[in-house]
């Protein structure tokens, strides 16, 4: 089980050919209280770097991008009822959606935890 990070502050956790995607603790801290999350429907094709979800906080609405190309298999319906999960457990219960990877080699360009930590410190 590996976790990768993007410069757009998404995390992606890989298990076999399935990936779980969410936004990082750093991102939720910057956004402030999350009040609404719009998730992709299962079956939707998303492309690396393309819009996949929308997260709305008291400050602003932001797009969440797909870290890799694939087909959405499941969205975290718990976020519709309780978007505060993104604040309280961003890299756990606050996950956004799962997808089936089309091209696992796309993961190579992403950061690991250590590189992402260094990236955030320079933000």
């Amino acid at each position, binding site marked *: 089980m590996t976790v990768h990070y993007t410069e757009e502050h998404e995390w992606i956790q890989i298990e076999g050919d399935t990936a779980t995607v969410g936004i990082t603790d750093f991102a939720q801290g910057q956004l402030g*209280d999350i*009040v*609404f999350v719009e998730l992709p429907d299962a079956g939707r094709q998303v492309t690396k770097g393309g819009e996949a979800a929308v997260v*709305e906080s*008291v*400050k*602003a609405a932001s797009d969440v991008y797909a870290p890799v190309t694939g087909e959405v298999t499941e969205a975290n319906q718990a976020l519709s009822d309780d*978007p*505060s999960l993104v604040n309280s457990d961003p890299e756990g219960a606050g996950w956004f959606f799962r997808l089936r990877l089309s091209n696992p080699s796309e993961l190579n360009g992403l950061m690991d935890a250590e590189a992402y930590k260094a990236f955030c410190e320079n933000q």
Partner: protein
Amino acid sequence: MSMNREGRPTRPEAAAGEATATWTGNRALMLEEPLIFEMGEESGTGVDIEDAPRVASRLGGLERNRPIGIPGLSEPQTVRHYTRLSRQNYAIDLGIFPLGSCTMKHNPRLNEKMARLPGFADIHPLQPVDTVQGALELIAELGGWLVKLTGMHSVAMSPKAGAHGELCGLLAIRAALEARGDAREVILVPESAHGTNPATAAFVGYRVESIPADDRGRVDLQVLKARLGPDVAAVMITNPNTCGLFEPDMIAISDAVHAAGGLVYCDGANFNAIVGRVRPGDLGIDAMHINLHKTFSTPHGGGGPGSGPVVFSEALTPFAPLPFVEKQGEHFVLVEEETAGEHHASSFGRMTAFHGQMGMFTRALSYILSHGADGLRQVSGDAVLNANYILRSLEDVLDAPFGASGPCMHEALFSDKGFAEGLSTLDLAKALIDEGFHPMTMYFPLVVHGAMLVEPTETESKAALDQLIGALRSVAERAKAGDESLKAAPIHAPRRRLDETQAARKPVLVWKEPAQAAAAE
């Protein structure tokens, strides 16, 4: 001498009862006001009309079987209710309203007088045009001024407000592109544009791509040029932009967009900074909305409806919406679908049932005529001077991210850099309420961290600006010094700090009887 010892005292007695609670809870003359649904009774009424006659229902069992739930109040109860609520509010008639990019300026009373003239106020949009020639002439004359002030070719008067004007402009752009068989898909929107721009583009069915700002807060021309291509329908640009800065490369931007086959939409919300000095038509713009409720002083923000006429370049004019007023000989006519004929066959259609916001047209023309061309030029000069006075008076205590790139336009932009850990722009804004001011626009534009956008407009005197500056300086110093009491602000407002998160996550949008609400909990 005769001495009257019964008159009222003219001096206050010694303050004896300071701590005594009053029966109403120490609200003095600011009484707590219930919701209108909690007042009166359904049978109450302010007008005396006869009961409706009993008729046999033909609704076949679909009649309403519950009370309709409309509050019943007498006229004095109603007047007092809304007057009391208004005293808990803040308005441009009470003080400066420094909302950036909103141009909250004084609404001259002369405009109100003109708008109430029966020939403008007491007419109906379906009246025969022969009976409303004066009103149509007013619409045409105002349109003529807007075309002249912007250096454009034509104007659509019907859009009801800014975002509706954006929609009008983009629909015309889409119609023009489709007419030449050119289905383009992308609209480019700079980061420094108004937030409604990408929403409008998406609504019209375009894909939105963002163009970053450079380190001077302007559109990055090279990035924009590199992105242009056969898929780009238009660029939506706000000039002056939401950083309060003029886009000096505007002509180069327009030229590049046109060379790539696209069109240029300009968000005219910030026209107040340039009215009488810069004509958008000279900058290569194809369509721009004008917020009459900003630049031309018609009331808004709870005070009245907006109005967002759109001016068009010659290229877009054939695609402008119907209806519009046209002078034929000595007669003003409404050009509508049935009468448009060959000339206007390419119009994208109709945006509104009727002709626009008549009351706003009257006020805006009154504003224009009472200022004259020289007065309008002074409006933009004074608005820019006031904003720069604020920028320079506060840049030693608040971070001004683009302060070094020269004067600002109509609004001054600050960031939260230098605030003590844990204190934010929100805390400063709430503390400003305790100082007696409506807060500025905050957390916008998004290109600046913890943004504070202050637009004073030309309305404010130096004395009024100095008061605002004093208050802002005081709260900024507290934020930098780490004064935790800011987190409790506002303390002196009718309501303390509201839970915005809870309001967004669990909004209560429908009033329920208290018993019902308790049962639903």
